[in-house]
């Protein structure tokens, strides 16, 4: 856990030349969606930045986010950034387990109190603390005690950011996203590990801590490392949108950056997955694409090092970086179409209307006939009566 090395020193120690370091900075700037003119500044900042301690907690998750991040056998930019941090605790990746692992976490927290980055993936079950535990400690407790001393909290993946799949109806575990959990439960957390020299341990209030939501199921790897790189370079959090997501990656909708947009505008749609339109690469709106309402970098940054993204491969966007996307009425139904069987309801309604209409018509006719019967003929004698 050598945290006294700067990142520049750490990379040189790995045998990476300055030229290699500059290539690394150029690729990092590109990945962070920063202009190339900022590369010298990034190089200077990364040279001197201290390797931050990162504690990664995994709760109710499928491990897909970790998998997404670590899909590399040799140094990629993502991998390097990951190596430049000091990943002091990660369930899936660490070699230690049991009490040794927990001791590592506690040591990292104590040594870096107030300065470590807390990364969380998976949602937090509050229905019953026993639903998800690590080394006998419930997710709720572990998150609270670790959040107390974190410099920043990053929710990786839609489960941590918005609740994700455990949160979907009927939410049997009472899953909460990290931000919602902390604002509800984080008012008075016992300060177990951050005691100062005098031994003072005032309870900590974490409800004000910013939680960065890196949503997506999973998020694009460069987005995860882009946020880390931003933090390393500028020592502050990137600009966030109103859902707490970094604007650099979530500022534009898929629809606005989709290369198939000209087909949408011209009204050329694929009607099924194997028809002519689909083969010609037409818009997938009719097949349920959630591109218009989804904000993510898939259409520009793409996946697997810029290879492709779902729409390019012929599948409509699921909207996986948006809240409640599992409850959106189905992946293959467009977001604005009716979910009930309207035609059937209309037929029944027509039947009812026929009955009511006939009844009302008969009533009207009866009223008419009655009025006709009641009609009294007026003669000149009746008119004279008045005078």
């Amino acid at each position, binding site marked *: 856990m050598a945290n006294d090395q700067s990142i520049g020193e750490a990379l040189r120690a790995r045998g990476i030349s300055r030229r290699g370091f500059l290539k690394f900075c150029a690729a990092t700037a590109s990945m962070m969606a920063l202009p190339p003119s900022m590369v010298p500044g990034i190089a200077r900042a990364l040279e001197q930045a201290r390797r931050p301690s990162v504690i990664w907690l995994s709760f109710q998750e499928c491990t897909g986010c970790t998998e997404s991040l670590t899909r590399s056998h040799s140094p990629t930019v993502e991998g390097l950034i990951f190596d430049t941090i000091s990943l002091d605790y990660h369930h899936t990746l660490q070699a230690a387990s049991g009490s040794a692992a927990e001791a590592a976490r506690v040591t990292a927290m104590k040594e870096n109190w107030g300065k470590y980055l807390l990364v969380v993936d998976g949602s937090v079950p509050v229905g019953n603390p026993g639903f998800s535990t690590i080394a006998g400690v419930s997710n709720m407790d572990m998150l609270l005690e670790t959040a107390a001393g974190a410099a920043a909290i990053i929710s990786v993946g839609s489960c941590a950011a918005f609740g994700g799949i455990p949160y979907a109806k009927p939410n049997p575990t009472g899953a909460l996203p990290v931000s919602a959990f902390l604002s509800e439960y984080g008012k008075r957390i016992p300060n177990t590990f951050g005691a100062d020299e005098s031994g003072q341990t005032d309870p900590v209030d974490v409800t004000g801590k910013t939680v960065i939501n890196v949503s997506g199921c999973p998020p694009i790897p460069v987005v995860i490392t882009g946020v880390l790189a931003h933090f390393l370079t500028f020592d502050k959090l990137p600009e966030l949108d109103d859902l707490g997501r970094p604007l650099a990656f979530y500022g534009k909708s898929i629809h606005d950056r989709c290369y198939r947009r000209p087909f949408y505008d011209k009204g050329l749609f694929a009607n099924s997955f194997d028809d002519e339109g689909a083969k010609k690469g037409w818009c997938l709106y009719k097949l349920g694409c959630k591109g218009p309402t989804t904000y993510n970098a898939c259409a520009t940054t793409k996946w697997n090092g810029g290879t492709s993204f779902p729409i390019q491969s012929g599948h409509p966007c699921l909207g996986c970086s948006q809240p409640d996307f599992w409850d959106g009425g189905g992946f293959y139904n467009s977001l*604005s179409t009716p979910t009930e069987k309207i035609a059937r309801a209309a037929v029944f309604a027509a039947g009812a209307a026929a009955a009511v209409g006939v009844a009302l*018509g008969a009533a009207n006719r009866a009223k008419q006939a009655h009025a006709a019967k009641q009609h009294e003929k007026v003669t000149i004698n009746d008119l004279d009566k008045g005078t």
Partner: protein
Amino acid sequence: MSEQELLQWVRGPAFEAASVIFVIGVLVRLLQTVLLGRSKDLSEARGSEVIGGLRTIFTRSVKHNFQLSTFNLYTMVAGYIFHIGFFVVLLLYAPHILVIDQVMGVSWPSLPTTVVDAVTVVTIVSLLAILVHRLKHPVLRFLSRFQDYFVWVVTILPLITGYLAFHRIGASPPTLIAIHILSVELLMVVFPFTKLIHAFTLFMARYYNGAFAGRRGVES
């Protein structure tokens, strides 16, 4: 309620309820009118009822047998622009055709979305022009009641909310779509019980007037 839950409710049970009310409302009003019948005309027919009726359905849509004044020229032009624009936006916009396809199983080609966008603006402007006319002309203003203004609001709301939803202005996209669908449901629910029913009854009304005149052998 989260915005996803709102959207799910709006496009689910609420849309079903609005459709049912719409269908029942329109059918009941049409049936009531037809079943009431007309009083027997005991005079000798001097011309054809049917031909007179059918002709009038079409002639009423063009300038026929009336003097053109600025008043009715304004009404005609604004009315045409509004109605044509409204039908273009409703029936030739791809996501709308998709809804119709899902409900009724029929679809047809759509216009480019940029064209529909422009037509929407023109239609909104024509509606504003119609309202200005109603407010400024003394006779119209005198005749106008609450229902006239209410129906105007209910008609322009889907156009405005649709424009905002398309351009994603003012709120998150799911919320904007939900508000748009809600405004359409409001229109559907009040449709059969206000003068908007003219969309269906105009054919019967014109036919009746034409048949009446046609039987007497006069032009209508």
